């Protein structure tokens, strides 16, 4: 019957454009990254098979080992910062009625702009002669080298990304808060629970899935941070903000060592995968 054949054929035809795009630009490069990591691919396109040499090189590469440490420190600073900012503002938005729409819009505004713009503006804010030091001077505080001090650069960068990105997580958490039935909170209030007890015993457990979602998304975002670092520090000072992604860009487009850069890409993929799976495990356990 015509009708029975019609569905499979039209189905395939409708999927075809996206499927072709996927095969060529997602799946092929993914396999390609794994393949290239086993070669010494040069910019000329010449290559030879080198087995696991690139992976062995990772262990002896002080830049790589330092970049791993920088990446993990950055993630460890950024994630709590952005989640707390998102949670705090979401809780306030949920509690406040006065001009709520306006405030929500203002808090969400940085999210629609680019990390490059955030980097350009905040670089000026952080500069030695910049806005923040200008304000500090008015308060008689000595100028701070936010971006030139190894110990300050990662928190400074994390703050910029958190400022730019927290609006998204704030909205996710706000939606989670709104779905908590008011009657639960009212009952607890009648039973004499104070604000902290209500938050700790009712809001937090019910918000848990949304919090985990935000945690996973923000962790992955943190691992992928590149734009602000490129704009604001170029990996410096003295490689103090030289992350794994920055290493991929550096090896690929400064040293044109494509084989090794692809290997760093595989490491990034493995890291993101492992962290996602661990957090997924924790989430599943948490729900049980």
């Amino acid at each position, binding site marked *: 019957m015509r009708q029975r054949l019609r569905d499979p*054929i039209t189905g395939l*035809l409708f999927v075809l454009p996206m499927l072709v795009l996927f095969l060529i*630009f*997602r799946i092929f490069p*993914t396999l390609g990254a794994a393949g*290239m990591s086993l070669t010494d691919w040069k910019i000329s396109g010449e290559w030879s098979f080198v087995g696991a040499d690139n992976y062995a090189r990772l262990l002896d590469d002080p830049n790589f080992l330092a970049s791993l440490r920088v990446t993990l420190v950055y993630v460890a600073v950024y994630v709590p910062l952005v989640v707390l900012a998102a949670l705090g503002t979401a809780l306030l938005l949920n509690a406040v009625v006065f001009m709520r729409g306006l*405030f929500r819009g203002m808090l969400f*505004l940085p999210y629609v702009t*680019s990390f490059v713009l955030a980097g350009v503006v905040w670089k000026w804010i952080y500069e030695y002669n910049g806005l923040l030091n200008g304000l500090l001077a008015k308060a008689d505080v000595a100028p701070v080298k936010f971006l030139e001090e190894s110990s300050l650069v990662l928190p400074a960068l994390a703050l910029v990304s958190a400022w730019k990105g927290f609006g998204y997580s704030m909205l996710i958490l706000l939606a989670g808060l709104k779905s908590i039935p008011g009657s639960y909170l009212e009952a607890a209030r009648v039973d004499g*629970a104070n604000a902290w007890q209500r938050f700790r015993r009712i809001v937090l457990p019910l918000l848990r899935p949304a919090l985990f979602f935000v945690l996973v998304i923000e962790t992955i975002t943190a691992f992928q941070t590149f734009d602000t670092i490129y704009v604001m520090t170029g990996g410096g000072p003295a490689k103090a903000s030289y992350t794994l992604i920055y290493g991929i860009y550096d090896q690929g487009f400064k040293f044109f060592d494509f084989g090794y850069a692809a290997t760093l890409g595989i490491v990034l993929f493995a890291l993101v995968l492992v962290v996602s799976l661990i957090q997924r495990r924790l989430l599943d356990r948490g729900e049980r």
Partner: protein
Amino acid sequence: MTERTGVLDRPGTGPAVRRAPARTSPRRPRGAVARRAALSVLLGLLALLTVSPFAAMFVVALSPAGKPTVPAAWPSSLTLDNVVRVVSASGFLTWTFNSLVYAVVSVVIILLTASMAGYAFAKKRFPGRDAMLWTFLATMMVPFQATLIPMFVLISDLGGVDTFWGLIVPTLANSQAVFLMRQFIRDLPDELFDAAKVDGAPEWVVYWRIVVPLTRPVLATLGVFVFLWHWNDFLWPLVIAQSDEMRTLTVGLTTLQTEEIQLSMLMASAAVSVVPCLLVFFVLQRYLVNSIAMTGLK
């Protein structure tokens, strides 16, 4: 890059409801009005703090050059000089045009291909459907940066460096878009499609006359997101659009920064580059906010 990697679906709320510990003496909170007012003030201050970098940027962009580093909260004289000079500088309009092409073409093609694929995945049975869907989902886990090098080699071998197609085409394979469309179309009643079939309407008519009009809200939302993803995109344009004529605004901004440039000019450039985002924001804020809450689209 546009693709967001992630393993989780949007969560609902959890099932666990725990009773708060009972207290013997129920009491209403005192000073509730004062507390509420304090919270409003706190929230307002945080909101002002959040937008203050933008305010500072606009004040510097609109102030005469050579002003002190800390912009006055209420500037005495405003001028469009910087903006005019930025816009009339040689590269800026080209970059803006390139960013517009990059964003708008991507929006059109992604909306078309993702809604077609979403329709097929939602309403058609065909061999390999579930395997394909799983593969699409699995690719979400691969960060774009992990495939940056092979992608660059592929495009450069195909002659796509410094071309619009080389810039645009690789960013079109977007699984988030496909999943969003599939989810939405799956909820449309089957009877609509059966009726059209009985009438003998060809499939492209069903797609164009039923799927597209009924998914208009989600298409609009997706369109806004795809526009922002591309307008704000940086790493891919940075490596693929190398000549000055092909640069996008984000890449162009970073080249301005490395030159000797007056702060007022840099901030004016930054301010102009953010105008489309602000327009989208002011016109469609409610829409954006609701769709993030409902779909988790990032």
